[in-house]
């Protein structure tokens, strides 16, 4: 769903601009260009909120309607792995914000370092997630024909819980993968020393994006994992 155009728009147009390096031809100055970039990213994040919002609405509805089934389904998720993953993702947000900080100072080497750390933590998250998915598959908890449920709450609604679990975490993971790919591209650009204190819009925008993905997880974690533990 994401394109690098949002991020590289301004920078890639260089050369056509007259005297200011990195200024696209249709902007008056770097400040305007930067304002547009930031605003564009925020507007995009609004659409992302609504995109996940549809799933959160479905979740809220079915949970409201089948509380027991949702609690029962949730009890089969691994809280330990979920908690670790939350910490990992928060860690990646920290490294990301440090990368942005480095960009503000124009330290391209640091940007690369923190970007790589962010990607690394993202990978850790995905690997853990993959293990969890694997367990679910083994336990016949992946919705569809394969699904078996012998616990409480009734098979149908529990399957709804798992459908939403996979849809939401899957969509979240997809966002991470795309984010990591974009970070990779920007890391290469940083490696070539492309960012300056005046012009590092792309880094800031990928930062916004990554934090947004983190925020989604901050809500997914309690809603999916913690709902079943106290019952």
């Amino acid at each position, binding site marked *: 769903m994401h394109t690098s155009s949002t991020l590289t728009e301004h920078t890639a147009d260089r050369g056509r601009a007259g005297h200011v390096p990195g200024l696209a031809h249709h902007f008056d100055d770097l400040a305007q260009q930067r304002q547009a970039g930031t605003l564009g990213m925020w507007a995009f994040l609004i659409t992302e909120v609504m995109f996940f919002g549809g799933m959160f609405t*479905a979740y809220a509805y079915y949970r409201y309607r*089948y509380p027991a089934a949702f609690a029962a389904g949730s009890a089969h998720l691994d809280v330990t792995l979920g908690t670790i993953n939350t910490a990992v993702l928060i860690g990646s947000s920290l490294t990301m914000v440090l990368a942005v900080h480095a960009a503000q100072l124009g330290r391209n080497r640091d940007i690369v370092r923190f970007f790589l750390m962010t990607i690394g933590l993202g990978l850790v998250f995905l690997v853990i997630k993959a293990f969890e998915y694997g367990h679910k598959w083994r336990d016949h908890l992946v919705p569809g024909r394969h699904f078996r449920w012998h616990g409480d709450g009734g098979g149908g609604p529990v399957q709804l819980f798992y459908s939403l679990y996979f849809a939401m975490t899957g969509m979240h993971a997809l966002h991470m993968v795309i984010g990591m790919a974009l970070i990779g591209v920007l890391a290469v650009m940083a490696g070539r020393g492309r960012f300056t204190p005046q012009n590092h819009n792309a880094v800031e925008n990928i930062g916004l994006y990554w934090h947004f993905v983190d925020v989604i997880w901050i809500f997914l974690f309690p809603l999916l994992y913690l709902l079943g533990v106290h019952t």
Partner: protein
Amino acid sequence: MTTLPYSSPPTELNYLNVRYTLASWLLSVDHKRIAILYLLTITFFFALGGIFAVLIRMDLATPSPDLVTSETYNKLFTMHGVAMVFFFLIPGVPAVFGNFLVPMMIGARDLAFPRLNLLSWYIFATGGLFTLTSMVLGGVDTGWTFYTPYSSTYANTHVISAALGIFLTGFSSILTGLNFLVTIHTMRAPGMTWFKMPLFIWAHYATSIIILLGTPVVAIAIVLVFIERVFRIGIFDPALGGDPILFQHLFWFYSHPAVYIMILPSMGIVSELVTCFSRRRIFGYKFVAMSSVLIAVIGFLVWGHHMFVSGQGMYASLVFSYLSFFVAIPSAVKVFNWTATLYKGSISYHAPMLYVFGFVGLFTIGGLTGLFLANLGLDVHVHDTYFVVAHFHYIMVGGVIMAYMGGLHFWWPKMTGRLYSEGWARLGALIIFVGFNLTFFPQFLLGYLGMPRRYHYYPEEFQVLNVMSSAGATILGVGYLIPIVYLVWSLRWGPVAGPNPWGAKGLEWQTSSPPPTENFETTPVVTEEPYAYEEDAEVAVAH
């Protein structure tokens, strides 16, 4: 009307003649060229949707199922709705005129993200190809509303590729909206404060808000149907305890506001045209501007009016009905302000203005019948009948397409540098108006008499009105062919337009026609309010 002899093409460099290669079009990041790409693409889909419509009307001329099979009929109205809504009317005004004019009207050199703009066209085209694929493979038969569980479980047509296509155009629409929003916020020419913006810009601003906040929700709804269908993972599946009405909520959360994505930009066109052709400042500028924003916001609170008999709770239906009536008020404000703008104007009957007259009248009828539907007790009877079909065609064909045609004629000289034939254009407008009313007015009566929509065959007592409707559709079809002919003709033989054939006031008219790639030689500085027609000494109009 003066007909100039064949004249040589303009010699200065403009966005059309800078380069001629196909690649220079397909890889262009110039908003004007992208607008042309969109124009060609959506015209194709309009023709496609129109052909489906003609087949529908031919079949319905008799009560019996004779022309096509039921399965084919169902595919026809589905593909008609999908092509017209998602691939013609939603991109329609914004992607063509918005793309072309938003930067020019605010005095910018391009949209904020030109590459994103091109990308959005590619995504749109890809989405179109997916949907076309599903049509070529045999079609979809779910209705444009894709209600579950029919779409997710029972339909055995090509739902998946159609859904994917719609998902993609939604994404393309998001990119367009995002581009407008950012452009309008950050790139206005010096002096162009918010309340000096043309109303066309206000309309597009409001539209962008709707696109950004609404489209993602239908995207996820479609994704969920998609995975339900592909992986047999039920999210709306009643067999698992899922609720099909949840799908309807998610669908209409977008698709009601989407009707304002269609109408708001065309209201923007009307504001531009009505002032130019009555040589008057718009009446109640701030009210017209703010009503666009209000429509956008209130439009998000009323989606449940499509679900009064769906099993939605009574309490919610009451709330949705109540709120629906509020949307009528800003729409009324617009209609009355346009009318008041005519008062004591200096009105000319050029083709764009004829379309404006058509718009105002037909939108009023369409909108007022919307109130019948928003009315709880009455909707129980007319829901899912031809009354609804008539309502929305009055607004979408009688309203949006009228304004679209008006805009096309108005900005044709700007886009192509040529004047079209005014006489033919007036004739075309007239035929369209007559054909339109004959096609769709009888459908109001049919609807109240109880003829359900999406019916391939029907009881005989409905035939008279159906025949009238089918006859009207023929006239309407001819009406749409006429402009295609003379507009194409004008490309080569039309008189040269000059920068400002209408003596219009928008910034887009202060540059040559067709405009140069960078739009303006120097960034314009805005000092006047928009529509300052009254300061003109005498009117000089080309025709």
